């Protein structure tokens, strides 16, 4: 039986208004409402549920159900400030209740200890703006565990010798192995590496109201109609609503954070679905809108009190974007793998997580064995670069390769570069007449070098696996990003960070930020696990501050 949901009037001052209902916003909503606070979550996109998800790609993509709309919310891109930014779909994020966690791959690695202290270990890197985190892995470990158990992550503790310490095993076993996992595992071991079952935010065992994965194959890019993918929508948002103290308010396009004469935030201004403006009043505001929209909102909220943008006395809002470097190698095998079935990733390898700087670059990465081709993608770009593009030979190759191909996906470090990031486009507007998001980005040369090295290792593994044919995508500067990290970084120094270790804005006592923008380093990819662990920790910190009266005072 469905439960009546609580609703609040915008004029009613709630304890917290949270902007964004994705991986972080969903966790914060659940935790804070569970802790007794009254919470309103404002979400740009619609409130879709499992029944709305389908294997029909047209239903999802034609109606823009899951992601930002390139026409109503245009993005512009340039490589440097010397260039004029051009409209292009350079950024993708979720635009529905649950955010990007609805359509993501669900690869759920923890960061390692090194990720929090890498700057101290490596020192300054020319052209990069590296820093240590104000917290350590040990601070975050209990929250990683909480993510795994509460949200639902499948995996095998201790399977990777490179894993950081953990206090509990995974709550459920890994998903079944796929053909790519078997072939990759055998080849990697032959070369002396240590592959392990992929930790995935996808249920291998059913939970109340949620099915275990049915291996439908429509995972990456799709909402899960079985509730098996552990999106915020499927996991924490129902818990938040069940408290009776949390309202999820969809189709609410926040465009400004209201500030009172004392420099404290008073609520969030948003357009409803009819484009009527409302002010949701709140004692405190938490931005969890993602690493692009959170800085955009702060910049949109500039005022005479905050001329550079809200919470931007450091000038760091929107800077240091780290989208994670990546490259893909593909191999074709003799027998059908049929890896179009099931979730995407089957095996992961972290032997390259901390590479020797003597190789000529810093950082490291992880490899995974996966298959995430749709039939059309396989036909147009899933064949070797020298494959025929049309005709009988094209069809013959497609028929042979589609079921026999898998990818070794290399994910790695992005170094923070101060000139990389998001700002407001001076010319292009969104459908609401607001300045569009402008992305300025050029990979640090270090990251391209590292990806070239990783690509060569991936091809070696495919060789050892017995691939009949193999190739890789080129290592090129990125012009399209989905990991939106580092753009309002946390830190102890208000001059070099936007928020403190409690996720509180240095400049505004009752404003908190928690999403990909909070990260100080990029890890080696797969950031959502860490974003959620940060959100659980932030909720604890914010709860403690509120209970001590340190937010409203």
């Amino acid at each position: 039986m469905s439960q009546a949901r609580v609703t609040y009037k915008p004029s009613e001052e709630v304890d917290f208004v949270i902007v964004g209902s994705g991986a972080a916003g969903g966790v914060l909503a659940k935790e804070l409402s569970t802790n007794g606070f009254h919470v309103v979550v404002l979400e740009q996109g619609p409130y879709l549920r499992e029944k709305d998800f389908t294997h029909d790609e047209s239903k999802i993509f034609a109606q823009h159900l899951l992601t930002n709309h390139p026409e109503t919310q245009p993005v512009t891109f340039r490589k440097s400030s010397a260039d004029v930014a051009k409209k292009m779909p350079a950024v993708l994020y979720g635009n529905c209740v649950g955010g990007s966690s609805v359509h993501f791959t669900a690869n759920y690695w923890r960061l390692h200890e090194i990720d929090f202290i890498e700057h101290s270990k490596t020192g300054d890197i020319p052209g990069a703006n590296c820093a240590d985190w104000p917290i350590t892995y040990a601070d975050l470990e209990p929250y990683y565990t909480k993510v795994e158990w509460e949200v639902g992550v499948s995996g095998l503790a201790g399977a990777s010798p490179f894993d950081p310490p953990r206090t509990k095993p995974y709550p459920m076993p890994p998903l079944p192995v796929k053909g790519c996992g078997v072939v990759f595992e055998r080849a990697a071991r032959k070369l002396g590496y240590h592959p392990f079952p992929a930790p995935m935010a996808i249920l291998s065992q059913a939970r109340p109201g949620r099915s275990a994965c049915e291996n439908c194959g429509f995972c990456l890019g799709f909402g899960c109609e079985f509730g098996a993918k552990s999106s915020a929508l499927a996991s924490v948002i129902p818990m938040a609503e069940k408290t009776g103290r949390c309202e999820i308010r969809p189709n609410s396009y926040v465009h400004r954070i209201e500030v009172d004469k004392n420099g404290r935030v008073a609520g969030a201004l948003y357009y409803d679905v009819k484009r009527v403006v409302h002010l949701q009043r709140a004692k405190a505001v938490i931005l969890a809108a993602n690493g692009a929209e959170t800085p955009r909102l702060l910049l949109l909220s500039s005022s005479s009190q905050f001329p550079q943008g809200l919470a931007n006395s450091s000038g760091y809002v929107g800077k240091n974007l780290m989208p994670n470097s990546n490259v893909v190698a593909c191999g074709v095998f003799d027998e059908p793998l049929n890896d179009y079935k099931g979730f995407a990733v089957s095996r992961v390898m972290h032997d390259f997580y901390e590479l020797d700087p003597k190789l000529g670059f810093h950082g490291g990465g992880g490899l995974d064995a996966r298959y995430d081709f749709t039939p059309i993608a396989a036909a147009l770009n899933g064949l070797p670069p020298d494959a025929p593009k049309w005709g009988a030979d094209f069809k013959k190759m497609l028929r042979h390769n589609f079921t026999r191909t898998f990818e070794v996906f290399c994910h790695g470090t992005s170094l923070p570069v101060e000139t990389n990031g998001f700002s407001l486009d001076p010319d292009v507007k969104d459908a609401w007449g607001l300045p569009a998001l402008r992305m300025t980005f050029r990979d640090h040369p270090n990251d391209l070098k590292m990806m070239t090295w990783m690509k060569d290792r991936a091809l070696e593994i495919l060789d050892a696996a017995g691939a009949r044919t193999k190739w890789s995508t080129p290592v090129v500067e990125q012009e399209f990003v989905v990991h939106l990290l580092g753009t309002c970084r946390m830190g102890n120094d208000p001059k070099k960070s936007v928020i403190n270790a409690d996720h509180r804005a240095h400049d505004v006592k009752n404003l908190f930020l928690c999403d990909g923008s909070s990260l100080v380093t990029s890890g080696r990819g797969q950031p959502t696990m860490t974003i959620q662990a940060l959100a659980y920790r932030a909720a604890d910190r914010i709860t403690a501050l509120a209970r001590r009266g340190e937010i409203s005072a």
Partner: protein
Amino acid sequence: MHSFQPARREFLQLLSGSAGAAWLAANWPALVSAAEHAHAAAASANPKLEVLTEEQARELDALTSRIIPTDDVAGAHEAGVIYFIDRALKTFAKEDLPSYQKGFPEVLGRTKKLFPGVASFSAATTDQQDKILADLFAESEKGDATRRLNPDAPQSSFVELLRIHTVFGYLVDPDGGGNRDYAGWKAIGRDPAHMFSPPFGVYDRDYPGWQPSPAETEKK
């Protein structure tokens, strides 16, 4: 920007995990919107054309049938690709209609240049058709270099546009139009079922279960 002309890099992103979803979200909505309209026509026993003339449809059928020919399994013809494209040109790919209007005469011109006695592409033998298409694709590839140097130029030739449209019409989910009766999916070995159980393929059949390698402990 042509709604149906993904650049190579965008398709490379399709290979790369979440970026694939990104490309789809950015480029596919209009495509699949039209696919929905096309579905009814494609699924119908007597589909109707809404944009193309009978003559253009005959030429298009001949063209797409050489891009994805019929062999022992269905090709573009059996998948109803021309109906998918017809609806596309009425809806999401309206802006591509001029490319088709210009493209058909180009194909005819190339046909007559290479085979003077042949009245149309559809009237040519399949060998002749393949030679005409090869000639057009070779020219298109030369043009690619020019287009790369000038990003503001149209990003695709007619045959490249046609190739991409044909692949979409052949492989799009049938619920979205095209790929009639899963003809394309069946041809490439994609089981139309919506749920699967392991083992999925040959290599995972006899997998004994994950075991730590002897080297695990020495590494840490």
